[in-house]
């Protein structure tokens, strides 16, 4: 049944999506074709598909480690942004722009920045018992505004015609594309390694075991002496590290520079990916590919059929809604309760 829920949610999303297209005056079948099939029918489409799936999968793997322990990091978008900022900072200002160490240093900087941004809610939660959902979310807005400040102010490219963006990163600070014609680059291997590490951690390691006990039965974790604060720290830092690395790979890959909008909402979409994937490493790969297709298809129909760009978000929302609903109906049963007949007595009670 745990597998059935995502499948059911996808089918329902397609049905509601079709109704939606019909209501906008488009024939559903060709539109669905344009949305889901056309993007994958070219080499460039496939490249873009994997390119967008990669950060989603990477971030979702990190988040799922926390989610399994009931640590709700909703702020991957902010950690992604901070990772991109830190990595770009190293790439732009490192004294030797041709150093072979540049890319590894940017990787470390991105990871550290993502973790540092997640460490703040972790500290607040474990020390002051604040709600990490709220804190991580609010930290996202701080990160976004910080990025905006940098690209409008101190980091703005002097030769950039006053556009709010940084200078381009030097070549040594960029991942190489597999083929100059397409944008897909070697950073995808980072995601492959992350998926394998995530699987090893959750399915095989003792630390992952402790985390799953914390999530499934907090009293049993306390009984066994597993530290609650450890679950909070590991859960948030794993999500922060993954999001930070994803931000670095985005800056050092398709973007090549910072601008106010560096993410089409990867950090939030990854939450949906983690749940569609049932918090399982290989499920997350499938979930990420699906979510990436939604991004691509949304862009596609926007261009070819002039449908609104909000469509992508709407599809994401419908999908998550149906997934949660399907889970709910699998675990609970609805029963109608008839109202009481002799209501007068209740009247006197009032």
């Amino acid at each position, binding site marked *: 049944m745990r597998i059935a829920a995502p499948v059911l949610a996808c089918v329902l999303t397609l049905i509601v999506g079709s109704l939606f297209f019909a209501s906008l005056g488009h024939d559903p079948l060709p539109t669905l074709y344009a949305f889901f099939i056309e993007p994958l029918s070219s080499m460039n489409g496939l490249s873009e598909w994997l390119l967008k799936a990669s950060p989603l999968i990477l971030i979702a793997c990190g988040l799922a480690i926390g989610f399994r322990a009931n640590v709700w990091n909703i702020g991957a978008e902010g950690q992604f942004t901070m990772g991109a900022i830190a990595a770009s900072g190293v790439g732009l200002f490192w004294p030797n722009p041709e150093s072979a160490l540049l890319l590894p240093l940017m990787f470390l900087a991105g990871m550290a920045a993502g973790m540092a941004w997640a460490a703040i809610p972790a500290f607040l939660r474990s020390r002051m018992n604040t709600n990490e959902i709220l804190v991580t979310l609010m930290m996202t807005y701080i990160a976004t505004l910080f990025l905006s400040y940098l690209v409008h102010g101190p980091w703005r490219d002097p030769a950039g015609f006053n556009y709010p963006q940084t200078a381009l990163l030097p070549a040594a600070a960029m991942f190489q594309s597999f083929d100059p014609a397409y944008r897909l680059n070697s950073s995808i291997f980072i995601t492959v390694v992350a998926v394998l590490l995530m699987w090893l951690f959750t399915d*095989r390691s*003792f630390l992952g*075991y402790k985390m799953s*006990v914390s999530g499934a*039965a907090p*009293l*049993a974790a306390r009984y066994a*002496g597993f530290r609650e604060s450890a679950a909070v720290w590991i859960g948030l830092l794993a999500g922060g590290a993954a999001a930070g690395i994803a931000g670095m790979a985005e800056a050092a890959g398709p973007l090549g520079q910072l601008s106010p909008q560096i993410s089409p909402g990867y950090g939030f979409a990854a939450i949906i990916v983690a749940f569609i994937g049932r918090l399982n490493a290989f499920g997350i790969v499938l979930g990420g590919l699906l979510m990436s297709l939604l991004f691509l298809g949304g862009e596609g129909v926007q261009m070819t059929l002039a449908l609104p760009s909000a469509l992508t978000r709407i599809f994401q929302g419908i999908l998550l809604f149906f997934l949660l609903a399907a889970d709910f109906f699998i675990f609970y049963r609805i029963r109608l309760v008839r109202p009481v007949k002799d209501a007068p*007595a209740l009247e006197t009670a009032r």
Partner: protein
Amino acid sequence: MQPRLELRNISKRYPGVVANDDVSLTIQPGEIHAVLGENGAGKSTLMKIIYGAAQADSGEIYCDGNLIAAHNPAMSRSLGIEMVYQHFALFESVSVVENIALSASSAFNLPSLAEKIRELSLRYGMPIDPHRQVHDLSVGERQRVEIVRCLLQAPKLLILDEPTSVLTPQAVVKLFGTLRQLAAEGCSIVYISHKLDEVQELCDTATVLRNGKVTGTARPKETTSLELARMMVGSRLPEMHVSPAAPSEKPVLEVRNLSAKARDHFGVDLEDVSFNVHGGEIVGLAGVSGNGQAELIALLSGERRHAQGDAIKINGTAAAALRPDERRRLGLAFVPEERLGRGAVPSHTLWENAVLTAHRFGTVRNGLVDRRRAAAFATGIIDRFKVKANGPDATAQSLSGGNLQKFIVGREIALAPKLLLVSQPTWGVDVGASAFIRQTIVDLSRAGTAVFVVSEELDELFEICDRLLVICKGRVSPPLVRTSTDREEIGLLMTGRTMGKDQTGGSSVALQD
């Protein structure tokens, strides 16, 4: 006479188990009828079928001579069948009358309902103030609320599931008085229990179940407990062997002047608790539930830590400030009262639950869980403790309470502890398994382990303990040697009174039942 309730050839099958096999029984109006049996004998399934919460695969139920065709709990209530569950379903933060109103199926008027509650509870000799908050009530009083809730429906048949498991001996006497009065007025009572002495004292007839089948019907007052026990567990009635204790010279567990504030409004403050447990002996803690046992055991296990490190010493090491896993490194093992969610993770398999506390025993290597070893460890427990489970891959929640308890006790004993803490070792566990668990605990102690047992069953404590402590309102009595004390002395200490000598001081303390 027309029987109040008649079950004819009831059978109920679950995948892999026959829960009830051709069960027939007849209950007359005004009869107190015991249903005796071990856990897993099919008592609960049968009660669910009578109450309509489960449907029989075959067989018929007649109430007052009429066949009940489509059965469900609403139908039961309209027929006058009510049930008092073993674990109460009361909301702590509202008053008695509000609790009862919440469960009313029809509309109600609060002031008149309160008046009815007062009247009914007085008539049956179990007075309750309808406006008191439930969290202020003792367990015995809470049970009265549950019973009054049923009585308000003017039941013709009342089902009670293990009603005495949380009561003091004195409160049991009062409950029995109420039940006899009800029966005298014509209400039939089904009394589910595994306590033979109570059934013999209270019940007119008994139907004994074993493996889903009726193994006998008896008049308990005219039958010996040995005969009843044989019917329940077959010929394999285990006997306890308790050899004399040989306590170690130095105590393994030392508790010195331990005081602690309750963590929440409903808890109990511990005041100046001191006692020792030596290797090779079993020390029991008696008391009515909710007098500080939960707080004390959490402080001993490390689930709650204490700033004053030397208030608790394990093998001479100050341990009160240590975490549970650090105390386990000093040789502690612990069987908690809640099996699901505390002693075991419900959704995890048995091998995963073995890793929970056995991770220092070869099931984790280089930071990775060794699945094969964990499975072997779990299989070892399953075999040695005869846990009925579908192998190490069965989830903890798929096991019956008694079997999961055997697994948890087995796991903790397999850790070869120097100090074993056990809370409610046989709560809800059937006679056969209880005897086995008790014997295992005794054997462990005779091999040199210090054992500390918290239990609400006095019989159990008298059976296995060498010394007894009594807890009341967060204070622990000086130790009593089992062979030189009796149930009466313990019972009085449980209610906060001392023996005869100190009459004036004792009488000012309210009886907690």
